[in-house]
C-alpha cells in the first residue's frame, strides 16, 4: 500500500506544519511525496523535504517515491536550487528530472548542500564568503561586518547538525523579494536534519531539571534561551546565542523547529508566535534564519 504525503503548493515555513502532519499521519506503507501541484518552494521547504526522505531511508523504510512539480519552470527551479540532484539519492523520482545548468540562479547563494562533517562546514562558509558577500552588501545593504556575521551564523547553524544531529543534514541559502509579507528583499538560510532533535540531544543532562515540563518545547527553551548544551564543557552552547545576537542586530528572524515544537525570535515585521507547541511531529531539527534588506 502506498500512502500519499502531499507537498503544499506554496511550500515554505508557513505551510511546513501541514506537510509534517501529512508525513506523520498514517501507518506503514510506502510513502509517495506528491509535489506535482507545487508552485513554489522556499529553501526551508526543499531541505525539509530532503530530511523527510532521509528520515524514511534511515529508519529502514522502503525507498519513498517523489513526484516532481508538474510545472516545468518550477521543476527546473528545484533542479537549479540543487534539490533534484540530492533527491535522486533519497527518493525514487517519478517524472523526468530536469538537469541543472552549470551556473545556477543568481539569487541562489548556496544550492542545497549536504552537511555531514566539519569539512562540509568549511566548504559552505568558504563558498558564501567568496560568492555571496558582494551580493549581500549590494542587494541587502548589509555592511561588510554584517556579511562576516552572516558567515558566522551560517557556520554555527551547520555545526548544530555536525555536533548534535547524529546524522547528516542539508543547508541552502537564497535571496528573494517578499513583496506581500515584507515588501523588500531578504536572505534566507534554511538548515534541516533528520537526526535526534533537541529533546533527545539534551535529555540525559536536562530532563530531570525540567521534570514534568520536559519535552520538545522545554528542550528548545533550554538550548536557545538558557544556552545549555549536551556537553559538560562550559564553553559550549554559544553558537545559537551568537546566531540570536546577529539576527537581533539586523532585525532578522530565527525559527527553530524540533520534534513537535517551534521556538521563534520574532522580529517587528513578523506576526509569528514565540513558541508553538504540540505541532505535528517531524524528525530532527529545522532552522530558519531570515535577514531583511537594511535601510529600506
Amino acid at each position, binding site marked *: 500500500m502506498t500512502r500519499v504525503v502531499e507537498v503544499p503548493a506554496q511550500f515554505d515555513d508557513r505551510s511546513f506544519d501541514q506537510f509534517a502532519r501529512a508525513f506523520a499521519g498514517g501507518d506503514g506503507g510506502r510513502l509517495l511525496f506528491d509535489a506535482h501541484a507545487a508552485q513554489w518552494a522556499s529553501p526551508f521547504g526543499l531541505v525539509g523535504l530532503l530530511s523527510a526522505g532521509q528520515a524514511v531511508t534511515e529508519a529502514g523504510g522502503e525507498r519513498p517515491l517523489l513526484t516532481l512539480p508538474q510545472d516545468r519552470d518550477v521543476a527546473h527551479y528545484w533542479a537549479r536550487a540543487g534539490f533534484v540532484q540530492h533527491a535522486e539519492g533519497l527518493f525514487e523520482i517519478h517524472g523526468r528530472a530536469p538537469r541543472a545548468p552549470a551556473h545556477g540562479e543568481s539569487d541562489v547563494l548556496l544550492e542545497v548542500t549536504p552537511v555531514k562533517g*566539519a569539512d562540509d*562546514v*568549511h566548504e559552505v*562558509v*568558504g563558498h558564501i*564568503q567568496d560568492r555571496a558577500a558582494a551580493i549581500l552588501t549590494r542587494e541587502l545593504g548589509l555592511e561588510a*561586518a554584517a556579511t*562576516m*556575521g552572516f*558567515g*558566522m551564523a551560517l*557556520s*554555527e547553524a551547520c*555545526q548544530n547538525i*555536525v*555536533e548534535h544531529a547524529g546524522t547528516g543534514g542539508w543547508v541552502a541559502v537564497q535571496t528573494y523579494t517578499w513583496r506581500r509579507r515584507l515588501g523588500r528583499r531578504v536572505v534566507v538560510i534554511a538548515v534541516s536534519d533528520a537526526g535526534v532533535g533537541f529533546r533527545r540531544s539534551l535529555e540525559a543532562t536536562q530532563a530531570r531539571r525540567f521534570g514534568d515540563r520536559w519535552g520538545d518545547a522545554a528542550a528548545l527553551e533550554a538550548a536557545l534561551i538558557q544556552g545549555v548544551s549536551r556537553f559538560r564543557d*562550559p*564553553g*559550549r552552547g*554559544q*553558537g545559537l*546565542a*551568537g546566531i540570536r*545576537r546577529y539576527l537581533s542586530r539586523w532585525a532578522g528572524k530565527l525559527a527553530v523547529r524540533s520534534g513537535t515544537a517551534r521556538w521563534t525570535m520574532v522580529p517587528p515585521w513578523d506576526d509569528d508566535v514565540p513558541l508553538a507547541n504540540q505541532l505535528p511531529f517531524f524528525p530532527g531539527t529545522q532552522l530558519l534564519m531570515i535577514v531583511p534588506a537594511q535601510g529600506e
Partner: protein
Amino acid sequence: MRAMAWIDLKDVLGRTVSGVYGDLVTRRTGHAVRCGIEQLLDGGESELAVIDFGTVRLMDHSCADEIIGKLLLQQGQVRYFLLTGLDPSHEEAIAPVLERHGLAVVARDRAGRVKVLGALPESARRAFRVLADDGPALPDEVAAKLALSPAVARAALETLRECRVVREQEGHYQALRNA
C-alpha cells in the same frame, strides 16, 4: 618582558588542518589549531604569546572558544597573551567567549589601536585605557586622571593585573601592548 612568540593563525591553520581553508570555523578546526599553538609554545620559554589574526578572514564562536577561550583558561596564568590584527568580526566572536569564561585579553586591531576585551568592570576598562594611552602609571595617578578614589583605582588596576592584561613593576602598572 623576556621572550615573545609570534603565532600566525593562518599559518597554524594551514599546518594543522588545511592550507585550502581561509576561515577559522568549527570546533574540530579550533581544537586542531589550539593544539598547534600549544606545540609552538611548549617548545620555548616565551613570556608573551602574540596571536596574529591579520590573515584570518572569519572566525566563528565555536572556534573562538576552542582557540582563545581554552588557551587562556589553560595557559593564561603561565604567560601573557596579546591578540593582534583583529577586525570587528573577530572581536564579535571572541568577546562573548571571554565573558562566558570570565576572562580578559588585550587586543590590537588592524589600525594598531589597543583595547581590552572580556569580562571586566567599567572602572577597570577605563583604567586600562589610561595605561594604554598614557603609559605606565601609579594607582594615584590613574585615580586622578579618572576622578576615582585611590582605593577604587587600585582595585581596578589589581583586577587588570589578575586578568594578566597589565603588569605591575615597583608600583607602576603597565598595559600589555608591546610586541
